[in-house]
């Protein structure tokens, strides 16, 4: 057993209101720079939708992630001995137009325009060329299903649905959507690390944060292709790739990352997970329908004495273990089985988990009237407007069971709380509902508390990051040992000539 610590995350989609505050916080802190204007390390997508960059989930186009083909896992972009032939031109590299061309407005014109019959306007100009452009796309052009015949209808995940289901989904009275905020997943088996020819991308041993060493990156751009979530970005000005750094300077001082801290809906949870690094290969190699279970399996119980002993042997200290015991991520992912990885079939073992959204529970209309009668206990779940196949495609590699359990459990807890607070529920029915999802009343109460009433300290249980250990290395050669930071520079980040 090789116990390691990972700073992991849970996003509770039932609470996300799609306000993009997280994106703005991140943008203001990290990517408001030349060459990075188009980057959204944190972005919020509307699902169904094509997302950012457009149709990023379609790996037949982008060639991201791992594939097994029944044998040893390989990067989908191809084995590296052949891939070096693409060094002069990467055929699977997304272009700026797959994201969008960043723009600003010529605000001076509002003041400098000569007097005339018309109001002056501020024309949009490209932030790349500084020339006027026709804006054709933006990072959230498909927000709230806008332009859904173009965007939502081309969601790659709709493949999982039958033609009838698809048609129903876009029926005018049945339109349904939810938000999917995305940041780097800080994967255990990251494709960007595996694809970097320069060896500039690495995982920090102590906390699992994946960083790009800006001084070793040579701009070969293989990480951009390899990351199936398209969360490594090429800075077209400096000629280096960049990505989410999970605000490690904030984490190291005990603060939650900017996107977490600013989250209005309080949907974000962050905490430590202990995992067994010896089982990474095993967990990434199982068939699609077992991926979620395999990933849960390799996450270790911080209360288990054997795990604790192994962790201590590996240099993980008691205070960190205490933080792992209180980790909300451990509860949502492993104990309660409510949170699921996004697109587990990419096999990168992502460390950002999502609680699938319950969505409007009213299912079908009968002659224009919503049928809210619960003839069966879980009928609102089984007959939800958004077919469960769609959620399964997103959150459990096509296997419906984990998604169904997560949804039913949330629903059962709603029934339980309704019984307590409104009092119009038959206790026997509630008992039956909880029993069916294997949830005790105590657990239901805990889930309710952490979901609805969590404080900042409940949501962010940040293990001590031990900067003092890194500081000790200053006695040795710190830069040789640690590699340079994934962000921030010891020299001006000027473009090479």
């Amino acid at each position: 057993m090789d116990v390691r610590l990972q700073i992991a995350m849970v996003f509770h989609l039932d609470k996300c209101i799609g306000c993009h505050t997280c994106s703005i916080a991140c943008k203001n802190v990290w990517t408001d720079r030349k060459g990075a204007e188009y980057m959204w390390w944190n972005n919020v997508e509307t699902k169904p939708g094509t997302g950012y960059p457009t149709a990023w989930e379609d790996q037949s186009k982008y060639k991201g992630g791992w594939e097994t083909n029944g044998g040893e896992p390989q990067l989908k972009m191809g084995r590296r001995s052949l891939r070096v032939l693409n060094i002069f031109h990467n055929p699977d590299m997304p272009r700026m137009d797959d994201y969008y061309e960043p723009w600003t407005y010529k605000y001076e014109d509002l003041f400098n325009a000569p007097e005339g019959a018309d109001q002056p306007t501020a024309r949009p100009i490209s932030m790349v060329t500084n020339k006027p452009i026709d804006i054709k796309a933006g990072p959230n052009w498909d927000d709230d299903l806008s332009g859904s015949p173009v965007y939502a209808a081309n969601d790659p995940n709709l493949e999982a649905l039958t033609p009838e289901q698809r048609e129903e989904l876009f029926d005018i009275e049945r339109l349904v959507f939810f938000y999917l905020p995305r940041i780097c997943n800080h994967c255990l088996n990251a494709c960007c690390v595996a694809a970097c020819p320069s060896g500039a991308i690495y995982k920090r041993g102590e906390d699992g944060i994946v960083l790009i060493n800006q001084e070793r990156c040579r701009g070969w751009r293989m990480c951009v292709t390899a990351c199936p979530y398209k969360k490594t970005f090429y800075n077209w000005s400096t000629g280096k790739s960049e990505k989410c750094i999970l605000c490690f300077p904030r984490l190291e001082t005990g603060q939650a990352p900017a996107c977490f801290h600013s989250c209005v809906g309080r949907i974000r949870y962050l905490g430590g997970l202990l995992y067994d690094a010896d089982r990474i290969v095993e967990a990434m190699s199982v068939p699609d329908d077992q991926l979620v279970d395999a990933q849960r399996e390799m996450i270790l119980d911080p209360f288990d004495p054997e795990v604790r002993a192994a962790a201590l042997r590996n240099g993980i200290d008691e205070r960190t273990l205490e933080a792992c015991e209180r980790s909300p991520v451990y509860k949502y992912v492993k104990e309660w089985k409510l949170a699921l990885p996004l697109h587990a079939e990419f096999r990168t073992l992502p460390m950002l988990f999502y609680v699938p959204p319950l969505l409007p529970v009213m299912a079908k209309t009968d002659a224009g009237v919503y049928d809210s009668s619960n003839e069966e206990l879980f009928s609102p779940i089984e007959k939800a407007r958004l077919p469960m196949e769609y959620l399964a495609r997103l959150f459990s590699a096509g296997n419906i069971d984990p998604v169904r359990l997560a949804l039913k459990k949330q629903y059962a807890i709603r029934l339980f709380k309704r019984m307590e607070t409104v009092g119009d529920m038959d206790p026997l029915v509630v008992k039956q509902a909880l029993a069916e999802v294997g949830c005790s009343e105590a657990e239901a109460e805990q889930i309710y508390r952490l979901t609805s009433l969590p404080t900042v300290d409940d949501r962010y249980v940040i293990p001590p990051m031990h900067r003092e250990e890194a500081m000790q290395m200053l006695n040795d050669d710190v830069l040789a040992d640690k590699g340079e930071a994934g962000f921030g520079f010891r020299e001006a980040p000027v473009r090479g000539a």
Partner: protein
Amino acid sequence: MLDNLFYIILPYAAVTLAIVITVQRYLKRGFTYSSLSSQFLESDELFYGSVPWHIGILVVLLGHVIGFAIPRQVLWFNGVPARLYILETTGLLFGLLALVGIVSLIVRRFTSARIRAVTSWMDVVVLLVLLVQVILGVYTALFYRWGSSWYATSAVPYLRSLFTLQPDLKMIAPLPMAVKAHILNAFIFLAIFPFSRLVHMLVVPIHYLWRPYQLVIWNGDRRKIIGQAPRPRPKTVEATVPVTGDTVAASRPVVTG
């Protein structure tokens, strides 16, 4: 007099610059070492420029290096006419490939608005020097036949005399203007090399072919931190994911340095 400047002083100045500045830049301004790829901004035309250019110029450059390293063997090889024709034709074809590439790259750089936005003065200088060099090379290959042989008997002795610090111009003095310009331009290329994006050729990631897929970096010395660990650990980098064909067991850490 001018010959002394161009073929004795300039070469030494250029080589000194190339070495000193390259090393200094790597150590002090390592951040600026990048391929500076513009594929993100424009991809389609790049294919028809970058790929022929790199393949063409690498083969031609390899030819120059081989001729310099083993001139006698090249002369022996060229002793049979058929082999000489094959060698010369190959060189010319790859030279033309490089020419097509560099012309496409230049056209692309000046016609695409997005690419112009990331074009520095040094990019223009580099492209011009390379264009002149390839044109002179192809011209020489076409009009001064059997260069692979006379290169070995005239230019190579001169280049070697530079290496032994006893510059000797008599072998290149009688060469045609185009050839002498080609040599001169090569030294100019060397002189601008450390100041330009060309340094990317020094950081070609050959190591990638055998390094482990996953990299993990720890604070400090891992062995000290896990004093009584049941098994030895690598200092900074270890593999957690095997590659097909790797003989390394899946879960065993691998020391990679």
